[in-house]
């Protein structure tokens, strides 16, 4: 006797699409794909079942900025978005830079019983870019990667030492790759549109220059380290930086990279509205960059789609474009957005799309793949093809606004399970 039976459901994971089957879930696992007795039966006809999503990049703001988001709202937003696992960024107040802080976050998240939290730790103490944190102890406390995200790693020597230090423990070092001195006060993509709108531009070259530098730093670390370092480039936004990562991968460098839902679906044109909702770093780029990123998703240059969910208060996002903070909240819309915009509208392969939410990011963290097979962990998401408009007012996140408000999307998560336990349910 299982707990849940999902009947007549199509399966989709990194291996492909198959079904329909009757998925029997119990003891936190998939017990059978051929049905059986269960306490609860859910009709899966017309729906897709996928492995639970993993977000490599979310800002949950706890501790210190709970006015923007906290673990409870952030992790509830995550399960509503189909995420069963999530990496939180350490640029909190104070920054997460000690094993104690990592353990405290994990403990609190476990008690919430929503998505599983992997709190990333700072690469340097206080994220100040000077003194390295204790990579080994942070790893043992549960940190999945080290990053100074929220800031840029201006000191190449510190980054090199960080990559070497993390390599010993198999920890990736994730970088927000923008040359701060080149981007200066840029608030949107630099180019003719920024010139027209009179907004300070953040040049695409600032990202490319920093990715190029970081790849050289990685080369150095690879040559010097007895273990294999791992550089993860966050939120790639430009064609040029993407090409650099592609070349580096071809050359066998241990680099991985992610792209965000906003860089894949929006362009700088959105800034014509002068709405700080669209202010994000790196900035929204051109249509050409979007096309390059989608190409990168297909050919494997990009390993994962990561949200960079960055909640702020409504009032902060109603400041002007110079003062409003950078960031777009997206945990609750990421999958339906890309399901609709990439798979439904452009025929992007569904199997690859799901992989970019599951096995892709799992591999970045060194986790084993998760496929829909008998015996597999029942961390799953049921996706509904029915159309529904994005309604930020209904978000669980404290950031109840969205650049995609009103967009009509398909592929909404209607049921999210973590180890067989229902953590989100929106079945009709």
């Amino acid at each position, binding site marked *: 006797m299982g707990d849940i039976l999902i009947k007549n459901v199509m399966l989709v994971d990194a291996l492909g699409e198959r079904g329909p089957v009757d998925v029997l879930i119990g003891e936190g696992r998939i017990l059978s794909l051929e049905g059986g007795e269960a306490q609860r039966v859910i009709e899966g006809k017309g729906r897709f079942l996928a492995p639970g999503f993993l977000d490599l990049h979310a800002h949950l703001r706890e501790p210190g900025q709970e006015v923007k988001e906290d673990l409870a709202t952030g992790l509830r937003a995550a399960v509503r978005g189909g995420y069963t696992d999530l990496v939180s960024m350490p640029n909190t107040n104070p920054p997460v830079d000690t094993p104690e802080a990592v353990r405290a976050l994990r403990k609190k998240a476990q008690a919430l019983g929503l998505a599983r939290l992997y709190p990333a730790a700072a690469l340097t103490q206080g994220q100040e870019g000077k003194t390295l944190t204790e990579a080994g102890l942070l790893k043992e406390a549960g940190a999945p990667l080290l990053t100074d995200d929220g800031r840029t790693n201006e000191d190449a020597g510190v980054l090199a030492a960080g990559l070497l230090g993390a390599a010993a423990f198999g920890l990736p070092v994730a970088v927000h790759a923008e040359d701060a001195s080149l981007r200066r006060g840029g608030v949107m993509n630099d180019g003719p549109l920024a*010139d027209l*709108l*009179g907004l300070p531009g953040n040049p695409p070259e600032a990202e490319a220059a920093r990715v190029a530098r970081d790849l050289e730093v990685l080369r150095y670390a690879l040559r010097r380290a007895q273990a294999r370092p791992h550089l993860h480039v966050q939120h790639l936004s430009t064609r040029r930086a993407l090409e650099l990562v592609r070349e580096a991968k071809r050359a066998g460098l241990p680099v991985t990279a992610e792209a965000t839902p906003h860089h894949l679906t929006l362009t700088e044109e959105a800034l014509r509205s002068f709405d700080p909702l669209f202010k994000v770093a790196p900035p929204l780029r051109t249509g050409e960059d979007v096309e390059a990123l989608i190409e990168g998703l297909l050919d494997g240059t990009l390993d994962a789609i990561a949200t960079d969910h960055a909640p702020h208060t409504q*009032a902060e996002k*109603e400041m*002007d*474009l*110079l*003062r409003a903070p950078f960031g777009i909240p997206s945990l609750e819309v990421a999958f339906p957005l890309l399901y609709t915009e990439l798979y439904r509208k452009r025929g992007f392969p569904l199997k690859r799309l799901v992989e970019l939410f599951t096995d892709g990011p799992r591999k970045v963290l060194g986790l084993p793949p998760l496929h829909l097979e008998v015996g597999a962990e029942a961390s799953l998401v049921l996706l509904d093809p029915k159309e529904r408009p994005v309604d930020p007012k209904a978000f669980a996140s404290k950031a109840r606004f969205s650049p995609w408000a009103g967009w009509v999307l398909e592929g909404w998560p209607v049921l999210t399970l973590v180890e067989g336990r229902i953590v989100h349910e929106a079945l009709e």
Partner: protein
Amino acid sequence: MKHLLDFQGWTRAEVESLLDTARVMAEVLERPVKRVPALQGFTVATVFFEPSTRTRLSFELAARRMSADVVSFAAATSSLQKGESYKDTLLTLEAMGVDAYVIRADAAGVPHQATRWVRGAVINGGDGRRAHPTQALLDAYTLLEALGGLEGRKIAIVGDILHSRVARSNAELLPLLGAEVWGAGPPALLPQSLPGVRLTPRLDEALAEADAVMVLRLQKERMEAGLVNLEDYIAHYQVTEARLKKAKPEAPLLHPGPMNRDVELEGTLADSARSLVNRQVHNGVAVRMAVLYHLLVGRER
């Protein structure tokens, strides 16, 4: 025309109609009683998030000359950062029954954002580097007064084009009236492109046969940011008597003020008969009266 944010989407006919009204307003300003009751019952707020005495005074005088009630709100942006928002400020004014908001801010887009929050007319009083449409209108008015027409006329804008809202607004407006606009300045102070303007780092090229020359203010911050060296700028981009020989004889000079004498413009030129600076300030009131009339009368309240 619901708001005046910039000149995107404006037609030549709309601009000309506004300038025609401005000519009537200029005549009002010549009368013994320089005041008409046209905007009685309307309330105009000047909302300045960036200090600017000259522009604020010009708007307030324009509103009073039209018999509108005027309220003014000036806030350092620092107080905004303490938690009071643009939106709160504007909604407070809206609750007081304001019909038009003249908004000045150091960030591009604030007037644009304001149109999402208030029902009244929004007039851009200068937003960051983005636009300063009433300045461009008074420049156009002054140029038309001096040149008769702008069709086929070459207007050279000289200086820090990149950071200039005046340059951007003139770049939108003057070509609408048939002018050929050139922009010259050091490469670090030029945009990559600006629709409607031919950009060049060669001052002589922009000045050659120019019918009028508009000189922009060189801000200290640009030198501090290392974008330009002052001596170098003066040596190569200051508009001087000698350099003006390239332009048409008697080509008038405009400057949006306030001026750094002997930096962007040779001091003797600033006081010469070629300078239209005082006409610009004078015409500013008439142009702003016309803008208020066009935006407020006939508007659903």
